[in-house]
């Protein structure tokens, strides 16, 4: 039966979901704030409803979004990632209003969103975890607990906001003095950022690999994994490049991690698509980090190597369907890499380039390349949202083939107007360590030379710059 599905998001993920909704024969309803009035997701959806002037506050306004959903008669809401995606109150509001929330039940989001609860669940299920504390007590008692823990396990330790996520609310502490100083600051910061001042401590795992597992579960109790991903290439805890599957050569270890992820999902009564994140240290120990209760930005790489449309599956499962495949049906073939092409200037500390107009947009094509973007030539990037322009996902049968194709596709990209991360990635994919698959979360900071590129380097282009200036000024200003 044709359903109406509201997409409570914007940007590339809104488009991604709209496509799946439309492929399933349902009606896609977009919502938008004023700065997104020219955005592609509005044009692509079957209906688009204006929420308010924003910015950001309307996309985050549960009452408004639920109100719109009721008004248009939406059967279900897909939250995408970010915004309200991992807000249990939103999932709860959907449930209370008889709207299907495409994701796990609100109590699962609640439980896994609270890091301490999540750790308890995992501990009970026997999942290996980085040693850590419960939520620290308030005041001096909390400081004592923290210092005792650190003395037992050794520095450095990670001080984390219980309600944090996505790399936010984490600080590394090197010694006791710093721990005593930073704990109250971390609390205050967590309070203002997440409206929850709970913090806890974990042993720091130095330069680990970030390996995560895509899981998917139906309401009938079937849970499977879709293999691993490596998201080690991060800048300040923000992922830049994601790879499926993990390049860890020990297949048994990767299998064990994936099976552990399924156990973790089952232990938390997980339903719908989610991601179990692990850290893998240099001795090949792996530790549970967290479960993300949403579709991930990097879900595309898993789709490429498994052939399974995760968003389509999400919708079907939310509408009550059983998983159409078993664990045995899931086969990983080849390698896929996603690069987040952001409107940022890598040479200027990755400063966002929002507000600029994309004057030229030409994208690569051909075998093995997939683009999930939302910009078009003439589009002005809103200043008020994130800087992701397009995700380029490249597939190859072997790792070498994938790397070759990455370079080719990056070189085929032409985006002018905003500066982008493309020239940085051009250096990155030619880096010997990257080509060997040898990287961990320290990769970006240990490869500062990737920043060295000159996008106007070639002589032809330099002279063209002068020709452009002669044209603009009506004479050669350097000759008169």
């Amino acid at each position, binding site marked *: 039966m044709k359903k109406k599905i509201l997409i409570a998001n914007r940007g590339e993920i809104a488009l991604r979901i709209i496509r799946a909704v439309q492929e399933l024969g349902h009606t896609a309803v977009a919502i938008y704030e004023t700065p997104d009035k020219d955005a592609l997701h509005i044009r692509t959806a079957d209906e688009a409803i204006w929420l308010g002037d924003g910015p950001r506050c309307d996309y985050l306004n549960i009452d408004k979004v639920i109100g719109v959903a009721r008004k248009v008669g939406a059967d279900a809401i897909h939250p995408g990632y970010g915004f309200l995606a991992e807000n249990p109150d939103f999932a709860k509001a959907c449930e209370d209003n008889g709207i299907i929330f495409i994701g796990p039940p609100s109590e699962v989001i609640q439980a896994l969103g609270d890091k301490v609860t999540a750790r308890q669940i995992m501990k009970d299920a026997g999942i290996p975890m980085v040693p850590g504390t419960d939520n620290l007590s308030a005041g001096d008692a909390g400081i004592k607990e923290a210092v005792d823990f650190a003395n037992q396990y050794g520095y450095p330790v990670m001080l984390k906001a219980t309600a944090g996520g996505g790399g936010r609310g984490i600080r590394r502490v090197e010694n006791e003095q710093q721990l005593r100083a930073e704990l109250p600051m971390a609390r205050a910061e967590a309070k203002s950022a997440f409206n929850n001042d709970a913090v806890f401590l974990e042993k720091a795992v130095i330069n680990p690999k970030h390996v995560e597992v895509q899981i998917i579960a139906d309401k009938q109790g079937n849970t499977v994994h879709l293999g691993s991903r490596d998201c080690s290439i991060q800048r300040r805890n923000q992922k830049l490049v994601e790879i499926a599957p993990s390049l860890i050569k020990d297949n048994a270890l990767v299998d064990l991690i994936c099976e552990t992820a399924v156990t973790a999902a089952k232990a938390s009564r997980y339903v719908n698509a989610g991601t179990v994140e692990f850290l893998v240290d240099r001795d090949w120990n792996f530790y549970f980090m967290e479960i993300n209760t949403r579709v991930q930005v990097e879900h595309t790489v898993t789709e490429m190597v498994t052939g399974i449309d995760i968003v389509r599956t999400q919708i079907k499962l939310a509408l009550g369907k059983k998983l159409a495949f078993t664990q045995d049906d899931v086969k990983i073939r080849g390698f896929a890499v996603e690069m987040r092409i952001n409107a940022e200037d890598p040479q200027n500390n990755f400063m966002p380039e929002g507000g600029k107009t994309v*004057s*030229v947009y030409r994208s690569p094509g051909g075998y093995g390349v997939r683009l999930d973007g939302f910009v078009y030539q003439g589009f002005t990037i809103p200043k008020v949202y994130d800087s992701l322009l397009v995700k380029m996902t490249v597939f190859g049968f072997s790792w070498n083939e994938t790397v070759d194709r990455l370079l080719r596709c990056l070189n085929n990209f032409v985006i002018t107007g905003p500066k982008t991360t493309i020239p940085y990635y051009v250096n990155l994919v030619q880096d010997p360590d990257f080509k060997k698959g040898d990287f961990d979360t320290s990769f970006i900071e240990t490869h500062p030379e990737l920043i060295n590129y000159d996008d106007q380097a070639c002589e032809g282009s*330099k002279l*063209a710059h002068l020709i452009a200036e*002669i*044209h603009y000024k009506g*004479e050669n200003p*350097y000759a008169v």
Partner: protein
Amino acid sequence: MERIVQGMGITEVLKVMRKADGYYITNTARDMSQSDYKNRILLHTDLLAAPSREEAGYFSLEITGGASVHVDILRKQVDPFLKLELLREKMPKTMFQTLCRGINLFGYRPYPQNVIRFVVKEFAKYVDVWRVFDFMNHVPNMQAVFEEVQAAGKILEPSICFSTGPEHTNEFYVKKVQAILDVTGQEIILCIKNHGGLGSPKRIGDLVDAILQKYPEMIIHYHGHNTDGNDIGRVVAAAMSGAKIVDASDHAFTGYYGPPPILSVIQTLNEYGRKAVGINEAAIMETSEVLQPERKYYEYFESQIKGFDPTVQIHKLPGGAMGSSLEQAAKGGFLDKMPEILHNELPKVQVELGNYWSVTPGSQILWTTAVSNVQGGERYGNCSGDLKNLLLGKYGPFPFYSPPDWIYEKAFGPDWQTVLERDGGMEAIEDIDLDKERENLADKLCYPPTEQQLVTYLQHPNDAVNFFRFEEKFGKVYVLPPSILFRRGGFKLGETIVYKDHTGKEHIIEMGPTQENEDGSETNVYLNIDHHQRHFVFENAVAQAGEAKAAKLSKKEIEDLAKAGDVRAPFTANICEISVKEGQEVKAGEKLVVLEAMKMQTPVNSEVDGVVVRIVAKVGDAMQPGDELVKVKPAA
């Protein structure tokens, strides 16, 4: 008949020339570019002409020196050494010639001895014939260059600068030749440098004859300008009297103030039975055929006033300064005063200042003084720093007589005699620390400079650094033809430009649209570079309609402010040096800033004792009269 080729030493050259039945020709392409095109003829054009010029069989091609070294980096953004390298590739046989201003090298004021020697050594690797002069005909001013050229085994061509007037007798010039020979020895070519194109053909013939009477073996090279339209006459007279080399250039580009056409010289002298040795006339014609289509692109740089100027015999401006002087008059809005300046004031100043030779940098001193005398209201009311240095004898002794006392009084006040006694006469310029300069340049460039870069930097520090940065940004632009570099009014939509870059790679550029952004603050210029779309963003100049320009200050007001420590620019000029730092104590009369206008430098001194509290301007800034320079807080 034997052609002179690159690699022949001075002894062999002299031997061949003395035996030769006929005369040789120097193609003074550099002087043609300087005199008639404000030095803008591009390497691109010279490279087009190179193959046929190579075949033409000249004694030499004058292709560097004079003001060209500076203009190469300042306005053409070409490395003066790379230029010579690239031309040499296409012209292995032809001698390259330069024009060097002795102690002033290729600039406008004296350099330290070690800089002179270093610069000459580096250039001598590329330059075979060195024409060297001094505007005071003061031989010691040329000595360091003489020595380095001879040490490098290159051909030395000392010059006697020529002018007219009662003092400029054959006897005087013959004595000068002896003074030169006393220093150089016999193995030289002697140049008669007639930079103004002065005197009649008879006068020039007589001079050549007088010199040859005294030194019959002397190889004389006559250099002239066609300002009055009569240089062929002088060339012919010189050759008929025995000059062995004469200057001329390609007729496709000959104008009014530079050299006469080569072919006309050859044709005329043919009739007199004199043959041009080693010359291939077909190649000379071919050169002009190649060059002809390029001339139109240089039109903007041709003289503001067209036509020969026989009044040069009165005002004596050198051909190389005609174009730039007229340009200054046009830009300064005093073209209407030119008859007054050229026909009355300049000849008067010339006589008052000792009737020395009106050639760089002396010609600039005469010219700026004459302009200032006419424009400033009071004659010698505002003496430039360079005029003061001239009066003090810093450029060398006056050749015939000193200027009258009243001019010294105007320049230095009632105590002028004390000043003259204290500061007068030439002083040795202290050597500078070349290693330290190399480090300074490395700091500015963020990489170690080459020796050639250092040479360029030592001569023109600010302009050299700007040039090196320009190359980093825009690459080597000599590959672009004048039709591109000198395009005015922009390109047409869809116009394609094809060129080979410095590495030999061919590029194609197609012009796209030009668009302003929404608020008009930026303009995007779109281009297809090698079929890839690119765009360049230019910030639009903000129209300052609301901002009233500061009211013009009178000269008196500027002087009064200076006495209160508020130092303003007294005239239109660029800042070439800030001599003080903020917080520095200064005494009255101490130099604060050096201004440069029309290539002449003038220091601005503090009128008061005090402390420098603020430096408003910076090096390179263009100043209008009354613009703030420095604030000095007078001592209590």
